[in-house]
């Protein structure tokens, strides 16, 4: 057994951190976002070590409670917890009493009674994580609630963009696709606008949510939704973009009568190399995954030089490490574990 030199515990008491749950980015101040991004940098450093493991969350229990199938988000949280030495268990609907009709509140309370410290929840219904947070003192992390929010995805997007372009102020970030049903787009809008980016959302009229245009809501409620630019024509949207993000298109949208066909969608809204010529020369291309290549994004573009899709995935682990660590309330991040 070789003992690497332990790094002296560094005080990582965050400059600004007030959250006990992470439900969405709408209630994050800029300084809190900065706290996460700064810490994610250090976590990324841990993650890139030869032996990516530190005991920072030893004795901390994370339950992944997934009411909806997920591969990447679930794996990302599992890895994030394990790298930090937390105990992580994952419950999916197929393997739990959830299917027997136990209520969400009961399930969450049961998890807490088993001393879960954090519950990572994915659910098909908007607000499910809020309901859970009201009924437990375990930390709730919203890993996607219906069409509403996906704050950890948004934070990893912010981290990924920031690492590449630096200051987001004045940068044009364009999201293309099913804005109405996208929890990623909703959370990204809050985070990106908070950091000063110019956010453009683009999609067919049937996939744009109502009320997003400032004139669609009363003046007293102007702050109730993030300030974004709405486009239905992709070329205009992409014009001058620093970042272009394609969103996943669910095939149900066609059955729901929202789109004539996936083929027509790809004709008018697919992010292609040709269309990206209108973006800034050193633009970045993102996708929250899983991708439908040939539908919302051209295959060549997804694997092209501007694509930072895989980086998003790696950064996702680092950001989730940072979030678990912040929620744990622990204040020193030790160096590499001895082995």
């Amino acid at each position, binding site marked *: 057994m070789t003992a690497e030199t332990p790094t002296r515990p560094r005080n990582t008491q965050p400059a600004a951190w007030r959250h006990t749950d992470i439900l969405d980015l709408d209630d994050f101040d800029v300084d809190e976002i900065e706290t996460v991004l700064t810490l994610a940098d250090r976590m990324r450093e841990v993650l890139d070590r030869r032996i990516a493991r530190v005991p920072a969350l030893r004795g901390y229990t994370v339950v992944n409670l997934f009411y909806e199938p997920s591969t990447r988000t679930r794996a990302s949280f599992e890895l994030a917890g394990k790298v930090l030495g937390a105990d992580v268990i994952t419950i999916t609907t197929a393997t739990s009493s959830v299917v027997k009709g136990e209520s969400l509140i009961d399930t969450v309370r049961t998890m807490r009674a088993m001393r879960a410290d954090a519950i990572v929840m994915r659910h098909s219904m908007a607000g499910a994580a809020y309901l859970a947070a009201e009924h437990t003192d375990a930390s709730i992390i919203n890993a996607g609630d219906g069409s509403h929010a996906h704050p950890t995805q948004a934070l990893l997007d912010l981290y990924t963009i920031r690492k590449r372009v630096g200051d987001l102020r004045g940068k044009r970030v364009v999201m293309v696709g099913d804005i109405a049903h996208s929890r990623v787009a909703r959370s990204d809008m809050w985070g990106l606008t908070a950091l000063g980016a110019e956010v453009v959302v683009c999609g067919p009229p049937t996939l744009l949510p109502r009320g997003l245009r400032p004139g669609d809501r009363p003046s007293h409620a102007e702050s*109730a939704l993030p300030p974004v630019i709405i486009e239905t024509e992709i070329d205009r949207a992409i014009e001058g973009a620093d970042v272009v993000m394609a969103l996943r298109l669910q095939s149900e949208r066609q059955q729901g009568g929202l789109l004539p066909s996936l083929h027509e969608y790809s004709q008018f809204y697919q992010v292609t190399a040709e269309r990206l010529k209108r973006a800034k020369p050193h633009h970045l291309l993102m996708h929250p995954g899983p991708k439908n290549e040939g539908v919302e994004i051209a295959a060549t573009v997804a694997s092209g030089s501007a694509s930072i899709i895989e980086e998003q995935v790696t950064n996702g682990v680092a950001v989730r490490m940072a979030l678990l660590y912040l929620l744990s309330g622990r204040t020193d991040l030790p160096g590499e574990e001895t082995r």
Partner: protein
Amino acid sequence: MATLAIHNGRVIDPALGRDGIADVVIVDGRIARVGPNEGDMVVEAERIDATGLVVVPGFVDLHTHLREPGFEGKETIRTGTTAAARGGYTTVCAMANTRPPMDSRAAIESVLREAEKSGVVRVLPIGCITRGREGAELAPAGELAGAGVVALSDDGDAVSDPSLMRHALEYATRWSLPVAQHCEDPALVRDGQMHEGWVATRLGLRGRPASAEETFVARDIALAELTGGHLHICHVSTAGSVALIAAAKARGAHVTAEVTPHHLTLTHEEVGFGDDYRSIHYHTNAKVNPPLREEVDIAALRTALRSGIIDAVATDHAPHGQGDKEIEFDLAAPGLTMLETSFALCMKLVHDGDIDLPTLIERMTIGPVRAWGLDIRAGFDGLGTLAPGAPGDVAILDPNAEWTVDPAAFASKGKNTPLAGRMLRGLVVATVFGGALVHDTGRVVAL
């Protein structure tokens, strides 16, 4: 001879155009005399001092979910009618979405029997429009009329098939029954959880567009005009519906309409927000169909209630248990418990200067009675009025008393109100049904 004399209140009886200080004398359960110092003429009476208070006919609710039979965990005829009495209501029309639903003589008679036994105020049953409320075949309107229903409704669901709705309106004319439609096109509101608009977008909830109501209001008005049937539009909630109803009435269509206290006072913001827009919640107690709408709708509804385009305030009292509401928003049952907050909530219109008190009282008493033709039906003589011979039903009100809503103190089993903890102005001080006190806050003084 049992006599009750209510002294010296401001008596408002819109049916007779009365508004002034007077005594109300009830003998053997019926109104005997109303006038200044009339109470002093009677001897051997039980006496109540209503000085400084407002005395009106007991309220009439066209839209109450009593839940019995079938959902006694949510409400019973006893708890629901107790809640009614506390809200100043002496007549409630019981909605048909019970289990079994009110689509047979036997079902109606069972409700009437239970109401006779345990009801605290008058219960008038509503029958189904379609058998089993399934929207496929007509329920036996003649049989239901014979059993005593005052209207037909599949409320909770709309009768979606236009041909069936046409025939329902047509058939019911034989018994002069209003067909009360819950106007929301199920295809347009499918899976919708709240009003479609910027709040729904913020919360990521699927919307129920205003147009889903308006297309059915327009369609059913056309069918009423085609058939000569009496269309009653339940819980009107949008400015667009108001315009359609106004135009229909101007053409002389047999269309009446009701509005709820909550649609007159609360917006869709109730669902998602507390004090500011920074953080959100998913307030299932503000989930209701049709959903709470926007300020412009409230303004139009208030104007329509004042002008009489909307005939009546109806509570749509919809009690639910905690398990129906402490749950994911998509799964939560729609509806608000309302009987006990109705008057106070409606008084906001008076305090805001949007309607005067006598007009509001009209819309809660004789307005609903006339809307459903109960004033010309046998057996309902004087209902909603203080005319001699009318039922001895009276509400005694303090329009200015402030109180804080505490659902735990409700008589209703349903604690599902978005108003918990809110200060309201307007109190039902006491309620008299058939000459007997059925609700008393202790603020009326026996003389």
